[in-house]
Structure formats: C-alpha cells, structure tokens
C-alpha cells in the first residue's frame, strides 16, 4: 500500500515522501519503494537515488536510522533533511491514524 506523506519538521526543509509498504500497515511494515522529494540539499545529488534504493526492505520504524546510516556510508552531505525529520513525518501520520 502506498503512503503519500508531507511535512516540515524542525530543522528541515519541506519534505515529501511516497512510500510503498507491505500490508498490513504497521510500524514494522517493510518498505517496497520510497521516493523522497523536497527543497533540501544533498550532495552529490546522484547518490541520493542509491539511498532511496537501499531503504527498500527496511521497516517503516527504521526509516530515519537507516537513512542517516546510508547518508554517512555514501559520504553525502545533506542540509534541510535528516533521518529524525523523516521519522517525525511518518510518526505524525501514524498518530493521525493512517
């Protein structure tokens, strides 16, 4: 099932996510695909696609931690986007009863 998420967490730019997860939806649902968009910076830009690809298979509740780890592993420099910010957007949606 597909989630369309949007938010502007503290310290982040506007972030949008489209996440396809395995049903049934829960924090432990596995990510099948993810697209992260917004007015943030990530350099080198092309490596961000690899981060998105390698988020596949992670549980929704691990999204932020896995994102931060991949950013570090691939040597990306980011501004306006953090793993904590992504988690906050996902949690807000659960809180609102997706």
């Amino acid at each position, binding site marked *: 099932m597909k989630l369309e998420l949007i938010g502007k967490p503290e310290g982040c730019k*506007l972030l949008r996510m489209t996440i396809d997860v395995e049903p049934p939806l829960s924090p432990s649902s596995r990510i099948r695909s993810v697209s992260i*968009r*917004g007015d943030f910076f990530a*350099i*080198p830009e092309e490596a961000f696609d690899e981060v998105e690809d390698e988020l596949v298979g992670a549980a929704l509740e691990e999204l932020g931690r896995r994102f931060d780890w991949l950013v570090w592993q691939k040597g990306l420099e980011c501004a306006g986007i953090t793993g904590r910010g992504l988690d906050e957007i996902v949690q807000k949606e659960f809180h609102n009863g997706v």
Partner: protein
Amino acid sequence: MAYEFRLLETGLRRAAFNMGLDEALLRSVAEGVSLPTLRFYGWAPAAVSIGYFQGLEEEVDTAACAAAGIDVVRRITGGGAVFHHHEVTYSIALPLRHPLACQNILDSYRLLLRGIVEGLSVLGIEAEFAPINDIVTGGKKISGNAQTRKLGCILQHGTILLDVDVDQMFSVLKVPQEKAKGKLIEDIKQRVTSVRRCLPQKEPATIDSLYALTIEALKQGFARALDLALDSSSPTESELLLAEQLAHEKFSSLAWTALR
C-alpha cells in the same frame, strides 16, 4: 592579493539556456579552462525553476505556466521552486581547492553570501544571512540561493528580488499548507520583499534601471566582501556551444524536468 575572477554579464535569456550556461561554466572552471567565474543574468520570458529533488507537478502549475508563456526548468542544484521574473540572478563557479571554497554546504553559503549582503549594503539595504540558504532584510526574504558540487567544483546560484508580484508567483507555484504553516497567502506576502521596496530613496525606478543598479552594487559587494579582482569578459565559444547543447538536450527535455 585579491582573487582573480572572471565577470560575465549575459543579460536576459531563456531558462534552459541560463541553466545550460551555469552548467557549462561549472565544467569549464572544473577543467581549469576558465578562471573562477561570477556571472549576472536575468530571465526572459519569466520562468519557474525547481530544485533537483522536487517533483514537478507537486510544485508547479504547469498548465498555468504554459498559458502565461512562463518557462519551467529543473536546476542541477537542490533547494526550492523559484519564480524568476523581476530579479537579478548570479552564479559563482569556483574549484573546491580555491581558498573561497568551504568544505561544507552551510559554511559555503555563509562565506559566499557575504558578497550579496555587502552588495545590498551598497544600495543602502541592511541584510543578513538566514541559514540555510536565504538572505533577509527586516525579517523578510530578499534572496534565495542554491548550491551543488560536481567535478571538483562548486556552483552556487541565487536570486536577488528587484520587485515582487506575489499573486503571479502563487498563480504558478503550488505552496503546500505545511510550508505556509497554516497561514494565509496574505501572511506569506509579508515575508518576502524586494530591492524596490527596500531602497532608501523612493523615486520611481524602472525594472531596467533597478537591474543595472543592483548588478553594479553586487559587483562592488562581491569584490569587497570576498576580495575579488573582477575581470569583465564573455563566455568562451566552447562554453556557449555547450550551454546551447545542454539547453536543447537536457534542460528543455521533459525527461529532465519531470525527473522526480
């Protein structure tokens, strides 16, 4: 000793060419073919540019742009969507090994944007850097900026608003409620300003005269703040050829513009 920079003033051009030339400058500076470069330019017709990571249809009313003859282009830099109309745009290309090239994004903005702040000061406008990538005066945004690093080179470009038509801006940009934080468009209008609104002298000025005045001030600002020796020049023939090629094959293509 001042840092030697090439100065280009390339006038008002189409969006795809503008982005093609910025990328061509990045490449020629990266290859060491050209000196570090400061370029000033504008947009004709008006245009919307979106950041590298933005989704076209989420950010831009493409039908409204088409109806109004407004170009739409994706940048190679991150950051947000910008409506380019009455403004001065600048770009800086310099190698990462240059003393003015900071190693991280925020420090880099902080340093290079001193040129804009100083240039506005020449106009009598007191402004300051507002992290991550803006310049504000009196708490209102007057300049937005974006940056990338490729091929061992930094490319930073940004806008200095000469005048603002917020209603036209919002007729082509889609501003989500999350960004507006629940406030009305009227409130957003209060957060943006322009050179025209901030100039201490209140004589009416044409956009053309504001454009020329602001570029002269920015030249002085960059030279003073970053200790640049600016050498007025023109893009090389190979830079122009590459710019045209990139404009045609990359920046005009839907595959690039609708990448995300």
